């Protein structure tokens, strides 16, 4: 009998792992064809190397930042926060990264859409980034609203621009990242017919704004959610969150039922 896995565990070769700004790193790894076929919104479970004093036990979930099936590569963009991501930061070209994926349900683009809006903050910008290429391939215009604490911490902006997206950055230091201001930007885009759907990740406040607008204008939307994970394969139930499905509160596993969910079902 032939067994055909849809998820692989492999020891991918690190090609580069460079600092993007004071908080984020960009890692590129050479991998097999299955991993390189990962879709936007999907994620990998990375076994992070131990560094002195730190031995991360669980794998760490990391969104796909980019995939190239022809070159057989995957990319991650990650913020160094704790034991696991510090271990990742220590990887050098030529080292092996034990990764498992692609996992979860990613973003779905409707070819009938003419334009979409991606709204992200912090590490959520990494998750949204591969949408740019997928939308470009379908001829869908993208406006990206990228939110960060400071202008120098905005990530993914160059990638969005290189795929023809219009980029608006909003930051805390400039006082432009508040929900009211972002809502104003979104209303403007909806008013000029540039928003057939919302895509969001990384901010509960911005999610609430989009939920309001999605209801008011009857627009579809997707949100990528985060939750601590152990197995990443729907087996351990540690990653459940509450969702509102038709007025009823149900538990869903972020790793298996998501990480991408209907914007109206998510509870920020």
């Amino acid at each position, binding site marked *: 009998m032939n067994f055909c*896995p849809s998820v692989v565990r492999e020891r991918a070769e690190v090609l580069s792992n460079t600092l993007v700004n004071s908080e984020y790193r960009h890692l590129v790894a050479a991998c097999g064809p299955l991993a390189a076929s990962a879709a936007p919104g999907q994620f990998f479970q990375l076994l992070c190397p131990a560094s002195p004093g730190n031995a991360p036990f669980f*794998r760490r979930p990391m969104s796909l930042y980019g995939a190239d099936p022809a070159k057989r590569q995957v990319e991650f963009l990650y913020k160094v926060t704790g034991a696991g991501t510090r271990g990742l930061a220590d990887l050098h070209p030529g080292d092996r990264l034990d990764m498992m994926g692609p996992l979860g349900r990613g973003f779905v683009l409707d070819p009938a859409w003419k334009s979409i809006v991606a709204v992200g903050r912090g590490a959520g910008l990494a998750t949204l980034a591969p949408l740019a290429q997928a939308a470009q391939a379908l001829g869908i215009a993208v406006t990206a609203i990228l939110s960060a604490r400071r202008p120098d911490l905005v990530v993914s902006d160059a990638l969005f621009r290189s795929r023809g997206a219009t980029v608006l950055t909003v930051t805390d230091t400039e006082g432009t990242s508040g929900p009211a201001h972002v809502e104003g930007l979104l209303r403007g885009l909806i008013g000029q017919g540039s928003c057939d759907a919302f895509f969001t990740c990384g901010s509960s406040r911005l999610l609430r704004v989009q939920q309001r607008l999605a209801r008011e204008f009857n627009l579809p939307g997707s949100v990528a959610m985060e939750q*601590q994970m*152990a197995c990443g*394969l729907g*087996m351990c*139930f*540690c990653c459940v969150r509450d969702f509102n499905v038709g007025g009823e509160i149900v538990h869903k596993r972020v790793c298996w039922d998501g990480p991408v969910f209907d914007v109206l079902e998510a509870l920020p």
Partner: protein
Amino acid sequence: MMDRGTTDMAVTIGGVRLANPVMPASGTFAEGLSSVVDLNRLGALVTKTITRELRTGNPLPRVAEVDSGMLNAIGIPSKGVPYFLEHTLPLYRQWVPPLVVSISAPSAEHFAHLAAEVSVPGVTAIEANISCPNIEEDGKAFAMRATSTETVVRHLRAATSLPLWVKLTPNTGDMAEVAKAAEAAGADALVVANTILAMAIDLQTFKPRLGNVMGGLSGPAIKPIVLRQVYQCARAVRLPVIGCGGISTAADAAEYMLAGASAVQVGTATFLHPGAMIDVIDGLARFCALHGMASVTELVGAMKREEADEDDVTWAEPVA
């Protein structure tokens, strides 16, 4: 040593023939694993514990990592028996290995009802998770004491004709007595064991690292403790003992079998390495072949324990 041919990996556990002695531990396995590994290679499939009542599970965070292991307080988020019969059971029919259904209930009567309800075609054996709180004994787990173990296993035995595996808790001080009670009440096999009650505190926030404060420790950290308990149980009863606790490699599994386990369950290791069970099966086969064993059952209880002859003790001599 030389490879002396292949080893028969089949084992029989309480009337159930398994192609090999390796299976998942309840609650650490679901159909999602089939996207990474071929489930038909496993000795058996074991479901997450199901309950009669609908449960949602415990508050977040439900897991925390500790040195060489993890804490969990998942609770038992169960969708109930009808859901199991209508959805889970048909789904598992696509795989060949025997299906073992793990059940739990808050009283002996409820346990018996549930065992009867899941004794349906497609289910090969029942694993009774009696490490759960017994409402008739102030929430103390059934398997903490020999008396409550005997009562619940008698009820279960009367309620089903399927092979009955009984999963014990490592948190009792009376492992061998509890094992004997389960045997006397009609169990067909013992699973040793569930997680060890433990906790951890975050030094930045001063908060417990589990929403539930306490939870179960699993993974490599518990292996030496549970290995000892398997040894104690295997010596106390004639029933087959299934070892479960911190097994990640074939070497771990071999150690358990030498201590007296007739089969093993792999839990936490699968979270880190989805192919862990396959590696254990292949590695165990190689290990047995290397030792010229015709059957993997030759490993069971084969630990050599000779009393050292005082005259033989040479290592204590100081080197000049």
